[in-house]
């Protein structure tokens, strides 16, 4: 099979496996052994993920920029096909391993405080650890079947966590929607995997994609049987990474606990789609890449426009996530493979941080709501305002995250976003013509990003408290909360700054992640775009932010809420409604139709046969009854009637008897005499 690995490598592999299995162990312990609502569960899961993180760092140090490690074990044999279970540690997988554990750890710690007092506390950590297990396994497995398995399992964990508060109607609808929409992608992915298997007779990723021969074959053969699996994988990624047109589950998924949104729906699981694209990147033919670019670009733009007008804090962040994932997708499409992954890593930290901040804010708003018995939505940013002075840590970390999202210099976002946009321009240059619209839209989206995140910050943290405006008497008590909130957030804020990624805050090419994946070296013209992009965005940050400031804090202007554009944005481009009215209804209608078919056509035919049979039977019965039996019946009837007739004489009336007697005498006499 595989050549035996040297001892140190075996150790690394074992460490990676342990890193993956630790959360699973924690999950199982939480499910089976730990009593519900026990404090132990939170710490158990957190330490498990801490252990995973430590191991991940070790593995990362071993593998990063070193030859990839691959180990496998026979799982089962079907026919002549051997299905292996194995892990494949290369730059991509160890980066993801590290990233996932690094994001998951703060979220775990945060959750300990966030979920305190919930009656399904233990269950929560069991699910969360299970998710971590599935996610970690997803990134290191070497085999498409297992990839698919864990791909679905993260979706399943996400299902469980979105519907964690399953009493809430919306949460339940959201998790169903999330799972089914993901299932669309899953089915496509499965189809892709099976098509690949049909072509290459292996599921092994290493054989398929790390093998130059196969890669070369795939690269040259731009035929139907290569394009199709590529398209299938793309659909899988689209569903998982919430890209148009399968993005509507993500905003709804915000019904889950905020910590879950931070980990799963911002940092890790949704990034799995991008990860998948990266993992099977060689498979994509130019056509598929083009579709990928267009979808990514469009999604980024669309989600940004929607984020402009939403009022739900988490929904804004959700659309922001979709938008950023669109960027990554676009980056993948234009060939900015390494920038996409850079952005993936950077985005994981700052978006997770944004969600955690949002969690703190919502937590406080919830407290206020319960304390004063208000009838407000704790997630509505219209009810917030002026919270900055009460919650300094949240405020500051949030600003850092927002700047990273914008791509402000000195943050991680600056590096990654620049990389994407610059390479998009280069790509458009190469293609020429109308393709320039892609990077331009990317820049436009960046500008929209500046606006909506400014809006969010200003509405939440600055200005006057809108609640206080309504009820001046109240003393608003909001604070940053326990250290279990603060420490993870500060940790993530530090991760959102440039030093973690690059020594040079302006040159994405210097980022180690970029270097780890760099495929091609770009021409000099990159430099021009570099400057243009950097300048255009950073220069415009100030006026756009000021514009937002004047609208939302000073309230100098306001938007017309009746305008068409506002409506489109506010109603999320009517996509969800379209799905509901057209697609879901129609599928249910097909269901009803088949039910009708079953009942009336199929069963109807059967019943027709049955009834015909019964009718024939009835006919014979009729014949039997009236013709054959009829003769006998008639005979008996005659006898019976005769009997009855005679019986009629037996009236019990003496006079009748006498009458009869006399009549008989007369008759006899008449007979005797005259005949």
């Amino acid at each position, binding site marked *: 099979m595989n050549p035996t690995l040297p001892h140190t490598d075996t150790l690394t592999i074992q460490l990676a496996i342990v890193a993956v299995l630790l959360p699973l162990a924690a999950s199982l312990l939480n499910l089976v052994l730990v009593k519900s609502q026990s404090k132990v569960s939170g710490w158990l899961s957190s330490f498990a993920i801490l252990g995973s993180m430590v191991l991940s760092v070790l593995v990362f140090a071993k593998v990063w920029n070193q030859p990839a490690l691959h180990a496998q074990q026979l799982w089962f044999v079907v026919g002549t096909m051997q299905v292996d279970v194995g892990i494949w540690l290369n730059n991509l997988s160890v980066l993801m391993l590290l990233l996932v554990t690094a994001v998951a750890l703060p979220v775990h710690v945060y959750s300990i405080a966030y979920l305190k007092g919930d009656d399904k506390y233990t269950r929560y950590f069991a699910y969360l650890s299970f998710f971590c297990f599935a996610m970690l396994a997803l990134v290191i497995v070497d085999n498409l079947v297992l990839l698919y398995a864990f791909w679905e399992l993260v979706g399943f964990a996400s299902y469980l966590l979105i519907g964690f508060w399953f009493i809430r109607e919306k949460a339940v609808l959201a998790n169903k929607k999330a799972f089914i929409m993901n299932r669309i992608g899953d089915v496509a992915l499965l189809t892709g995997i099976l098509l690949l298997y049909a072509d290459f007779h292996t599921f092994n990723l290493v054989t398929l994609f790390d093998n130059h021969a196969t890669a070369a074959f795939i690269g040259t053969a731009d035929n139907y049987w290569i394009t199709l699996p590529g398209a299938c994988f793309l659909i899988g990624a689209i569903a998982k990474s919430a890209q148009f047109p399968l993005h509507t589950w993500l905003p709804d998924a915000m019904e889950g606990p905020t910590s879950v949104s931070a980990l799963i729906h911002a940092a890790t699981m949704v990034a799995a789609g991008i990860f998948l694209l990266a993992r099977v990147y060689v498979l994509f033919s130019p056509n598929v890449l083009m579709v990928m670019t267009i979808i990514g670009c469009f999604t980024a733009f669309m989600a940004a426009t929607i984020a402009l007008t939403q009022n739900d804090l988490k929904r804004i962040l959700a659309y922001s996530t979709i938008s950023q994932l669109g960027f990554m997708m676009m980056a993948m499409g234009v060939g900015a493979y390494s920038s996409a992954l850079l952005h993936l890593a950077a985005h994981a930290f700052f978006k997770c941080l944004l969600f955690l901040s949002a969690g703190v804010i919502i937590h406080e708003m919830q407290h206020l709501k319960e304390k004063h018995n208000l009838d407000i939505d704790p997630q509505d940013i219209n009810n917030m305002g002026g919270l900055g002075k009460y919650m300094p840590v949240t405020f500051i970390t949030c600003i850092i995250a927002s700047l990273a999202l914008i791509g402000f210099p000195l943050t991680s976002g600056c590096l990654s976003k620049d990389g994407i946009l610059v390479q998009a321009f280069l790509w458009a240059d190469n293609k020429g013509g109308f393709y320039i619209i892609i990077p331009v839209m990317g820049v436009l989206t960046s500008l929209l990003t500046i606006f909506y995140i400014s809006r969010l910050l200003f509405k939440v943290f600055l200005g006057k408290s809108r609640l206080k405006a309504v009820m001046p008497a109240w003393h608003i008590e909001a604070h940053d909360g326990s250290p279990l909130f603060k420490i993870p957030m500060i940790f993530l804020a530090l991760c959102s700054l440039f030093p973690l990624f690059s020594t040079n805050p302006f040159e994405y090419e210097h980022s180690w992640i970029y270097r780890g994946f760099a495929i091609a070296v770009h021409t000099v013209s990159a430099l021009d775009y570099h400057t243009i992009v950097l300048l255009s965005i950073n220069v415009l940050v100030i006026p756009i932010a000021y514009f937002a400031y004047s609208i939302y804090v000073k309230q100098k202007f306001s938007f017309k809420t009746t305008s068409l554009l506002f409506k489109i944005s506010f109603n999320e481009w009517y996509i969800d409604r379209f799905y509901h009215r057209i697609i879901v209804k129609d599928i249910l209608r097909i269901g009803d139709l088949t039910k009708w078919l079953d009942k009336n056509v199929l069963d109807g035919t059967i019943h027709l046969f049955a009834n015909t049979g019964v009718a024939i039977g009835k006919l014979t019965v009729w014949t039997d009854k009236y013709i054959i039996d009829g003769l006998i019946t008639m005979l008996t009837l005659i006898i019976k009637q005769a009997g009855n007739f005679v*019986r009629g004489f*037996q*009236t*019990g*009336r*003496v*006079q009748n008897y*006498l*009458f009869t007697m*006399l009549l008989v005498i007369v008759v006899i006499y008449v007979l005797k005499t005259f005949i």
Partner: protein
Amino acid sequence: MLTYLLLIGAGLFCIGIFIVLSKRNAIQVLIGIELILNAAILNLVAFGKYDKLNNGGQTFALFAIVLAGAAAAVALAIILNVYKQYKTIDPNAVDKLKD
């Protein structure tokens, strides 16, 4: 003379039959029976004229009269009992014998 007596007897007999068959009152039915008996007695008496030595006709006419009287007494006793039982003396109403 004899023929006429017989004819009267026949007529009486038939009237008796008619009464017995048609009346809805046991007492009237009894009357009809008595008429029939009388018709018979009339015949006995009419023929008894030609039996001077043995007086068969007249003697049996006497017996018949006496027995008719006894029968009437028994019949009336029965009628009374029937009335007690059924609160009616309509012979048609007394049809317990019917199957």
